């Protein structure tokens, strides 16, 4: 029987034989062979041990696996039977029911939520829903658009996040005053970018059964409305053309300023009337007139100091106010205003001088009435017009003047409409022959209410109320008509000329020359029989224009006389340029003539006569009342004389007038 040990032994024996080795017992080789065999055996043992251990371990693993699997199966079965049990079944049922309830509750809530959101997001309103603390928990797209943010950026926002910081305190007070369950607040609100809107927010309180709640707010952008309100406010208080205060806000401001006056202070209210505005407006058109008003407003504003008030009352009237310490300061105020408007303005590339008259009234007590002050200033202004200083401070005595002026204006209006104004005629005689060469037409008016009104007064008033043009037309017409009639009836020879006073306004009027031509033609009066009298001042105010018009008149044959020569400060150089015919020496010169042949006055008058002659002008001396005057004038070789010495102004129906005119009869000298 072979055993494993034997096998290896026999194998080695075979090896030895193959190697040709003889192994003797107990020899060293035999010992070596034993040791080698022992190594083989050990190796075999090790291998067998390992193989065996491997097999045992595998079997253990398999058994463990089996146990685990069975354990697994057991657990699964236990679990399944547990799941199948009645209790589990009941639990499941309950859970299912609960689940369903929950689902339907959630679905219902979701529907409600969706409805709300659809409503809110589609509403053309900005809607915000807040919690009890006023913090936004929902804001729709429109709200976000209003504030220039995304809707969720508004979450958590409260009032203080959108109200400008500097207005927080005041806003808090506003909130406190808001009571009730619904209220509205109008306030300025901040956008994300710092810009502001005016908003009207309607807030309603909301509370739920569970105690929660908050506020639902609807925000409306009313910035546009506010802007419009501001504009209206502005319009109500300012003059649209110049931007200055209008009459209403002027009087209100003055009223309140009056209330703040210290005992030693007075308020000076200045009324400024532009002297030649209507003229300019009519000549250049309304657009130019408006431009002039704007420039005047600017000039006035430049004159204003801190606290001063400037306004346009209407038309060409402006009003200013300043708190002053005394009348001298008020006068100075008026003077400065008048002066600043006496500069030339440029209208339609033409230089115009409008000039202004300033009247000032002083109010000292706290209850001074602005309307009264304006009226008094107006009166003073009227007086200022007549003066050379162009400004005047109101005096009590002016009051009657005011009353009178108002009446006058009223009556005059009627007068012009009903042609109440008539003409008186004063002959101008040849110095040598004493024959009437010219008749000067002088306007006369007797008002039914006021009686006789001096021409100076009513002519000025006419200009003030804008009737001077119409009046002038009437006067020209009447004068030409009268001459025409005299000529036809033979009262007047062909030699006789009619002299009519005209104002610069008439001269500058665009249609004046045509009017003259028309009037002459209407009454069949040759142009050469008409003389138009203009004052020095009137001519010089717009020299170039005057030249142009005179030129056209000349073409009609019409002659021109310079009236009141020597009374103003004029540059004589114009005489060279002006193509006029007559030079009327003012009566003041004539009255000062004296017998003393070396009197200064005499020489002056003589010089004027000489001047006239020099420029080919026919001198006419006005206001000749004494023979002496006549004699002296004759020595000066003054051609024509006018005055009471020869004839007074007479109405057309006065036979004495006809006497003067007929046949060039020599006038009786009246001593």
């Amino acid at each position, binding site marked *: 029987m072979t055993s494993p040990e034997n096998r290896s032994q026999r194998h080695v024996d075979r090896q030895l034989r193959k190697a040709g080795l003889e192994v003797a017992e107990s020899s060293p080789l035999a010992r070596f062979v034993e040791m080698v065999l*022992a*190594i083989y055996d*050990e190796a075999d043992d090790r291998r067998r*041990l*390992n193989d*065996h*251990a491997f097999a045992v371990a595998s079997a253990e693993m398999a058994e463990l696996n089996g146990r685990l699997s069975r354990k697994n199966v057991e657990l699964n079965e236990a679990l399944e039977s547990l799941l199948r049990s009645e209790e589990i079944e009941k639990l499941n049922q309950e859970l299912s029911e609960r689940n369903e309830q929950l689902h339907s509750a959630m679905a219902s809530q979701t529907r409600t939520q969706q409805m709300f959101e659809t409503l809110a997001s589609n509403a053309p309103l900005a809607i915000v829903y807040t919690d009890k603390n006023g913090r936004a928990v929902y804001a729709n797209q429109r709200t976000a658009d209003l504030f220039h943010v995304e809707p969720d950026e508004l979450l958590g926002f409260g009032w203080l996040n959108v109200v400008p910081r500097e207005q927080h305190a005041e806003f808090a007070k506003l909130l406190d005053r808001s009571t009730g369950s619904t209220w509205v607040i109008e306030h300025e609100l901040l956008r994300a970018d710092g810009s502001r809107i005016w908003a009207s927010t309607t807030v309603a309180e909301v509370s739920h059964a569970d105690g929660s709640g908050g506020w639902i707010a609807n925000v409306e952008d009313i910035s546009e409305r506010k802007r419009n309100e501001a504009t209206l406010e502005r319009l109500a208080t300012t003059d649209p053309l110049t931007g200055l205060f209008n009459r209403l806000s002027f009087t209100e401001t003055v009223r309140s300023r009056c209330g703040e006056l210290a005992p030693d202070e007075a308020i000076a209210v200045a009324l400024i009337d532009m002297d030649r505005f209507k003229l300019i407006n009519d000549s250049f058109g309304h657009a130019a007139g408006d431009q002039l008003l704007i420039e005047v407003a600017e000039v006035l504003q430049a004159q204003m100091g801190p606290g001063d008030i400037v306004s346009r009352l209407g038309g060409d009237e402006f009003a200013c106010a300043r708190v002053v310490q005394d009348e001298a300061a008020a006068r100075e105020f008026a003077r400065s205003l008048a002066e600043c408007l006496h500069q030339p303005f440029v209208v339609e590339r033409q230089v115009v001088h409008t000039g202004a008259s300033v009247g000032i009234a002083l109010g000292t007590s706290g209850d001074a009435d602005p309307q009264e002050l304006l009226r008094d200033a107006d009166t003073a202004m009227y007086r200022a017009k007549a003066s050379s200083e162009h400004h005047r401070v109101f005096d009590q005595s002016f009051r009657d003047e005011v009353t009178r002026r108002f009446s006058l204006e009223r009556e005059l209006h009627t007068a012009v409409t009903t042609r109440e104004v008539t003409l008186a005629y004063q002959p101008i005689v040849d110095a040598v022959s004493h024959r009437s060469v010219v008749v000067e037409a002088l306007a006369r008016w007797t008002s039914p209410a006021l009686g006789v009104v001096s021409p100076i007064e009513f002519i000025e008033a006419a200009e003030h109320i804008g009737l001077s043009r119409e009046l002038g037309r009437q006067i020209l017409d009447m004068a030409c008509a009268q001459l025409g009639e005299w000529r036809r009836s033979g009262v007047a020879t062909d030699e006789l000329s009619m002299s009519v006073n005209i104002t610069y306004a008439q001269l500058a009027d665009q249609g004046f020359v045509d009017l003259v031509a028309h009037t002459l033609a209407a009454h069949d009066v040759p142009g050469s029989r008409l003389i138009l009298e203009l004052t020095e001042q009137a001519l010089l105010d717009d020299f170039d224009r005057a030249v142009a018009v005179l030129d056209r008149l000349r073409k009609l044959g019409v002659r021109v006389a310079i009236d009141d020569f020597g009374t103003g400060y004029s540059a004589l150089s114009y005489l060279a340029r002006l193509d006029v015919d007559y030079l009327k020496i003012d009566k003041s010169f004539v009255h000062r003539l004296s017998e003393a042949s070396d009197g200064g006055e005499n020489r002056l008058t003589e010089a004027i006569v000489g001047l006239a002659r020099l420029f080919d002008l026919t001198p006419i001396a006005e206001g000749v009342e004494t023979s002496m005057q006549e004699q002296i004038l004759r020595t000066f070789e003054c051609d024509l004389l006018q005055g009471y010495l020869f004839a007074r102004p007479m109405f057309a129906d006065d036979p004495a007038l006809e006497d003067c005119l007929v046949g060039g009869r020599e006038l009786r000298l009246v001593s």
Partner: protein
Amino acid sequence: MRINTGIWNDLEANPMVGDASADLVLVFGTREQLSSRGFADRLQAAYPQSVICGCSTAGQFIGADLTDDGVALTAIGFDRSRVSMTARRMASAHHSDEVGRKIGATLRSPDLRAVLVLSDGTACNGSALVEGLSEELDPGVTIFGGLAADGADFGETVVLSGGLVGPGVVAAVGFYGDALSIRTGSQGGWEQFGPERTITASEGTVLHQLDDEPALDLYSRYLGDRAGELPGSALLFPLSVRAPGVDASRAVVRTILGVDQEASSMTFAGNVPSGWKAQLMRASFDALIDGAEDAGLSLDASAVDGPGLCVGVSCVGRRLVLGQRTDEELDAVIDTLPADAVFTGFYSYGELGIGQSGECELHNQTMTVTLISER
């Protein structure tokens, strides 16, 4: 440093390797040889001034010459260092740590660099001994050595200390001097295999049951027809034990010391606490050789100049696996040592060497090597 070695075959003759100027003489042999009458005296007569220390083994070697018959002698003379020896009787294993502390206290010195411990192999708790010793010594002191053996019989072991020879003795040699360079390393080569089990019944170092099955039955099953060679054959399957929660890589190896067939219990050279996880281990031939080589490589001895003494303490369990070719693991170590180094040592019942913790531990189934040289 001067080292002389030799195998003393004729016990009647006078032993002599080197000369009487040796500072230290190491003696490894069988129990019978060391216990034989006059043996210790003759040694003392030959080396009257030297420290003489040794123990019984399961094989001793000089270089790769492994023998069970001759006594391996190594005589070492130091140039700039000195040695000192102390020994204690141990009443029982329970006194192991106390003995360790006493030895430590005796040998302690500022210039102490290493301690060689040779302890009784069956009546000593090696772990406790090392713990007690470590307590008394500075952390930088290298502790090395092993438990004496009695071949594969697991009977009585003896330790020789000067003129003293007998069981229940612990001897320790301290190496002193700043010129000393000590390098130490240890490696196993065993691997866990099979299912992990739970220690379900045990007492200290005595294992009763694994997974509620008598541990002895488990071993018999795995040993197959080599079950009859118990307890010796149980050395082929040491036990890897770890506390629950500790990673398997940090488990410790326990080798069998004895078997009680009646109680069906197995005694291990270390604690095997209940509730711990246990797994059988095996070693392949190559793994053991590689392990020994790794132990030698870990010394990093290429930098060592001049002569050196390398003391190797290997395990009886490894010898059982390696068999005839056990000397191949010695070759593996020698190949890693400097040319001038002398390799000597024995096969023990437990090795004292550096562990994963960096401190000295009781190992099983492990090759431990310690190289001593003078700078």
